[in-house]
């Protein structure tokens, strides 16, 4: 009995779905939802296989690396695929109510191509193939941002496109250097062959710079708030929850496998920039008057936490960072969806004008508040587990100063989340006409927020998944 | 023989660089465009020479693609750029 190669299905299914949606624009929603469900089934299939048999490697075309391209699925890729599937399903459901028919015909094929790119990226074991997936991801994301129309969205999309292309080219130059130094583009083979040389340092600098730009680490975050704030709500959710994480994932892979001999100095730099992002993003979020911009700056801050694992570089720290990534994906998707609902309901997203939304849109506000719990890092949310692990790693490594950043960041997050919730309960000065929000949009947001909480309650299971294939090395179990 | 062909190619490359002057200083867009077209022709010639000199017959395909594609830029220039200016003069 031949095994079904789930990793191939995970890439080809959304690709086929995207083509089908493009060909039958009138049936786009139905076809898209079927595809989304199919992808969830494939992730479950792959998950089962990985749990039973351990990390999986699949040689596309029967040509093994270094000549061909390998797909690789270990615990790390599996968790990324899972969170993509959950958030993707939520966004698919949410977008039914959000887009009118004409826009849906554009949204669905682009979104499914983006999903294809994400799945392909998380499964790729080849740095040049990763470049192609990055380009696919970038172009689809830019087109989705521009879907909102209007001057703000168009200029934001333009800026995003230029940044994304620049970053991809830096990455590609790094790939060129690595290939010509070691004769392969396969991550595992490079990991065996790599030894420090000026070319490796240059490649490391270029690839890291490109990927940091794409994952918007302070001070390279300037493009993120306008793009994430002016996109349509489901797209904002997508970008903040998944797209920025994709480039962070590549960075993580490269640093875990190819660049470990580079030592601690670059890691410290990442940590410092991450801390700056936590503080700066938090302060900026607090200062915003518009809800979507507040959430976008909160993304800048939250992305900062992920980089705190680099100076600590222990297994616990990596796991904590990944845990934060997963819970942030779910919580931020919930927040942007809730913001989309409020925008639809009130007709604007000025925070001071949130005229008693809490009483009038209880499900949405519950979703926002629950997502806020995870963003702040309060128990029993996924965010709490992630921060706890980072805290533990910092204390164990004797680098207590990161603890201060973790606490300050949490306080700032608490301040901006409660600012929104506070205004949501009070009557606004100017009253406006409100419009109805579809049920699917409200419940999709709540489902995402609940998933973020659930991640805190079932912590042991994801942590055991992270052990598969030992992406973070063995050693200190925590 | 090789030296003769390579020398010719080099000479053509030099004309190409000399032709840049027209692109930079040509008073009207048409001048600049024509200079660029001349580039294409020179490149075709040097490719044909190189094909002979290096004994690589497939370079002739490259030359052919050059020759064909030069027409597209020219027509794009005429159709888009030219009509706009004609309208400006003719309509008022």
């Amino acid at each position, binding site marked *: 009995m031949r095994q079904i190669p789930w990793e191939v299905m995970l890439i080809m299914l959304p690709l086929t779905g995207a083509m089908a949606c493009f*060909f039958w624009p009138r049936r786009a929603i139905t076809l898209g939802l079927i595809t989304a469900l199919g992808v969830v089934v494939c992730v479950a299939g792959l998950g089962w296989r990985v749990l039973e048999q351990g990390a999986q490697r699949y040689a596309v*075309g029967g*040509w093994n690396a*270094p000549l061909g391209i390998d797909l690789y699925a270990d615990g790390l890729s599996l968790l990324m695929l899972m969170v993509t599937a959950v958030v993707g399903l939520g966004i698919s459901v949410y977008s039914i109510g959000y887009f009118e028919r004409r826009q849906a015909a554009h949204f669905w094929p682009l979104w499914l191509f983006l999903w294809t790119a994400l799945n392909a990226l998380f499964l790729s074991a080849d740095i040049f*193939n990763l470049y*192609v997936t990055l380009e696919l991801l970038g172009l689809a994301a830019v087109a989705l941002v521009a879907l909102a129309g209007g001057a703000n969205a168009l200029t934001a999309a333009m800026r995003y496109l230029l940044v994304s292309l620049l970053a991809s080219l830096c990455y590609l130059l790094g790939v060129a250097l690595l290939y010509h130094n070691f004769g392969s583009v396969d991550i595992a083979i490079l990991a065996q062959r790599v030894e420090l040389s000026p070319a490796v340092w*240059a490649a490391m600098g*270029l690839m890291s710079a490109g990927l940091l730009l794409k994952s918007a680490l302070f001070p390279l975050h300037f493009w993120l708030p306008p793009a994430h704030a002016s996109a349509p709500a489901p797209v904002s959710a997508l970008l903040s929850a998944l797209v920025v994480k994709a480039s962070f994932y590549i960075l993580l892979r490269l640093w875990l496998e190819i660049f470990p001999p580079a030592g601690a100095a670059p890691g410290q730099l990442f940590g410092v920039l991450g801390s700056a992002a936590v503080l700066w993003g938090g302060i900026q979020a607090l200062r915003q008057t518009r809800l979507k911009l507040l959430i976008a700056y909160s993304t800048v801050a939250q992305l900062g936490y992920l980089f705190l694992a680099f100076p600590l570089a222990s297994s616990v720290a990596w796991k904590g960072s990944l845990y934060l990534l997963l819970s942030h994906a779910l919580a931020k998707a919930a927040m942007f969806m809730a913001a989309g609902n409020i925008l639809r309901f009130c007709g604007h997203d000025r925070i001071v004008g949130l005229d008693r939304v809490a009483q009038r849109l209880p499900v949405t506000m519950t979703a926002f508040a629950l997502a806020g719990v995870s963003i702040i890092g309060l128990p029993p949310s996924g965010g709490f587990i992630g921060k706890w692990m980072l805290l533990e790693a910092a204390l164990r490594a004797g680098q207590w100063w990161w603890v201060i950043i973790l606490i300050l960041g949490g306080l700032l997050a608490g301040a901006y989340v409660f600012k929104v919730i506070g205004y949501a309960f009070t009557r606004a000065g100017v009253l406006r006409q409100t419009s109805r929000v579809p049920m699917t949009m409200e419940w999709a947001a709540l489902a995402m927020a609940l998933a973020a909480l659930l991640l805190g309650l079932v912590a042991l299971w994801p942590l055991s998944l992270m052990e598969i294939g030992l992406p973070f090395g063995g050693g200190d179990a925590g | 023989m090789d030296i003769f062909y390579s020398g010719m190619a080099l000479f053509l490359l030099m004309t190409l660089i000399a032709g840049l002057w027209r692109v930079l200083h040509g008073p009207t867009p048409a001048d600049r465009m024509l200079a660029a077209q001349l580039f294409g022709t020179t490149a075709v010639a040097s490719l044909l020479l190189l094909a002979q000199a290096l004994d690589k017959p497939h370079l002739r*395909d490259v030359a052919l693609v050059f020759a064909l594609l030069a027409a597209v830029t020219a027509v794009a220039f005429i159709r888009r750029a030219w009509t706009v200016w004609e309208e400006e003069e003719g309509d008022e």
Partner: protein
Amino acid sequence: MSAAGRSRHSPAFRWGLLLLLLTVAGGLGYALLTLPDQAVGLSEQVSANMATSGVQNPVTAVLINFRGYDTLLEMAVLLVALLGVWSLGSAEVHRRIDPQPVLSLLVGGLAPLMILMAGYLLWVGANAPGGAFQAGSVLAAAGILLLLSSKRFPVRLMGWPLRIGLLLGLGTFTAVGMTLLFVSGGFLQYPSNLAGALILFIEAAATLSIGVTLAALFLGGRPQAGPYR
């Protein structure tokens, strides 16, 4: 237009940037100089497997066979760019088209020649320089020439025939890959006796799609009579 060369940055910023970038370039140049003297690429692996690849041109073998998955995703990139352009709005078709005898004469002669050239490049790509992308771009050039010179916009072709043309390459590639998955047991794993034929089949479809997509990208928007009207 004259303001295009103007910059909004102060001279100090520009000099600082220049200095920084010169340092970067210097570092990169130094890194290049320290690379091993002999190339350490994959030439040997490629030539060792050429016999079973189905073609004689190593670049085509890499593009469609050894690393065909990259090419598959790249076809998706091309389509996504088109989707993005289409989602931005509809194309403005020429407002006024004057009959220009010279132009139609030129196009009448050139377009068939280009289509012929595209076919030639596609065919020759199996054992000499050429292949789907080169052929597709020449085909696109022919399409652009026709678009630029046609008196009437081919409205009737802008509905589903256009969409079929756009999807053909990616669709064929995907379909062949998935069929092979169930027949020979590996995604995009060509049986060596069929490899040549399958590669030509994929390339033919890809050429058509690349040509149509690039020509459609040139329009700069969704054709007016498109599916979303």
